[in-house]
């Protein structure tokens, strides 16, 4: 039982690692509009997940994101979820901006990971 869960989690990590190069390449070269269109096409072909599978995918994404060079990146996590989950591909993608001394931004999928912080501007795609 536990072995099965571990194997399923490892398989999910492998899926995330396979999707990572395309997501990273797109993140560095395309704006959100064309990149979302591309990744949603890919994500719609993936399996639609129930709550348990989705939680497993999100754990795998969190692990891979933490192991990537540099800081953890909310935009990368949201894009990976869109590319790997049919439900994520259909979810609204949200960018939040908060004005201050510097402009702070956050990205997430609506209804999945609503942030605690308030943002001055929300752009949904």
């Amino acid at each position: 039982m536990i072995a099965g869960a571990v194997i399923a989690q490892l398989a999910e990590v492998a899926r995330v690692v396979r999707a990572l190069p395309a997501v990273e390449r797109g993140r560095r070269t395309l704006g959100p509009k064309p990149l979302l269109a591309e990744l949603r096409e890919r994500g719609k072909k993936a399996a639609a997940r129930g709550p348990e599978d989705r939680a497993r995918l999100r754990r795998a994404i969190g692990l891979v994101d933490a192991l990537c060079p540099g800081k953890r990146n909310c935009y990368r996590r949201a894009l990976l979820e869109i590319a790997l989950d049919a439900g994520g591909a259909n979810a609204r993608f949200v960018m939040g901006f908060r004005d201050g001394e510097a402009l702070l931004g956050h990205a997430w999928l609506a209804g999945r990971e609503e942030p605690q912080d308030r943002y001055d501007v929300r752009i949904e795609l």
Partner: protein
Amino acid sequence: MLPATTRVEPRLAKLLVDRPRRWLKDVLTERLSSRILEPGDRWVSAWPDAQGLSFQHRFSAEELAEEFEAAGLAIVDRVSTYFVLHASSAEGGERDLGRAPVYRAADDVRTEKLEDALLLVDLGRGTTFRLNPTGTIIWELASQGLTVPSIATELALRVKDGPAEAELLAETRALVGELVASRLLEPARPGSVS
């Protein structure tokens, strides 16, 4: 009649004729496509044709300038050759051929008001720009299709005790240039921006 001058050496002729001719061809192509110039303008048929070019072979720059002015054509700039500001249109009356370009917001740019600023987000390219209140006015006027000089004039009216209009013009020109370079603004046809 224009007085004839000395013969021009081939190297000088290349400099005086070939290069300006190529430059003119490029400028005319661009200006015709953006409808700043239109077929039928007297300037189009009078200047870059064989007769116009032969003037450069035979006459000095000063003589050409005198001749153009005598014909009622205002020369506003000299970049290898002459640039004409006004010419009679085919229908009669004057058309401004050297008018400043106008712009419009690029298609994928979203604007969002912040408390004391304007946020520009280019969804196609993934870039963000934060404009201060003066930059916000410049953006709004530029994306409404005003030329840079018109924006500076409007700014001078709106900004009380602000910098001199010449300074505002320089600032406006710099910001609009930066916005165009960042592809947040793009050139528009005159009259096409509502």
